[in-house]
């Protein structure tokens, strides 16, 4: 009985841990996308962007590349060209 309770308790704990991890990921992704908006309009640089996220520039580069997003913010608005669908549909991710 006690073992079953422990298993149940462990299961609940795992669920909570998973829920919290997803919550953290969502928060991180939200922040990343908000900062990307500032980056793509030229308000912040790539280095500042990385620093605000607590990442190295190389990890941020990887995240943007993974999301199909340019790492240069000079040029036409993504909504005009080929970047629009990637920008709206792709979830940005950081390499594990």
């Amino acid at each position, binding site marked *: 009985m006690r073992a079953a309770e422990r298993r149940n308790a462990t299961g609940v704990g795992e669920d909570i841990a998973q829920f919290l991890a997803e919550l953290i990921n969502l928060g991180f992704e939200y922040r990343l996308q908000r900062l990307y908006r500032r980056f793509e309009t030229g308000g912040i640089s*790539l*280095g500042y962007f990385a620093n605000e996220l607590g990442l*190295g520039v190389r990890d941020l580069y990887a995240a943007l590349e993974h999301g199909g997003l340019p790492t*240069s913010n*000079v040029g036409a608005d993504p909504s005009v060209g080929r970047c629009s669908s990637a920008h709206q549909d792709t979830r940005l991710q950081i390499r594990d």
Partner: protein
Amino acid sequence: MLTVVFDAGHLITVCKFESQGKLVVDHPLSGCCIVITPGVEEEVAVLGAGYPDGVVAGERIAQGVIQVMPAPARRWARHLADYALGDGEKDSIELCGQAEEVEALVTDDYLAFVTATRLGLKAWMLPDLVLELTERGSLTIEVAEAILEVIRPRYRVGVIEHSLVRLQEVKKDAESCGADRGEEFASGGASQRYRGG
């Protein structure tokens, strides 16, 4: 030799992408001297050592092909203070303004580009460096075109298209120079220096 200061973003690009069986970093390096700050080295070759391009950058630094040089002083600290630039970008701007014989800051970042320009520095994007090296005869038209195509995904719309039009101008100019001199233009390169718009 052309000496340029690189910031982190496109140092990663040139160490990552290959064109014609050769990393992009190994194409322009034959025609220019790349200088980076210790901060950019840290960002790309140390913190980025888990990525193949970070290893490439580290190797080129160890070989002395990419030089690491700190900015002698923070001359523009107050000018740069309120810009949302990273330390690597600020240091690169300072180094470009203080190191002797540096032709330009090469950056693909809008804010760094504008800030450097406002400080009176010459700023180029990486595709501009490719064009410059082609004009100087260090890169052939074909290699330049291949590099521009391979790095295209890292840029927003308009940048590579602009550079390809300029590249055609370089090619035409080289051809006309060759014709004027009665020389045969070899399609393998723009050997004459081009200074057109």
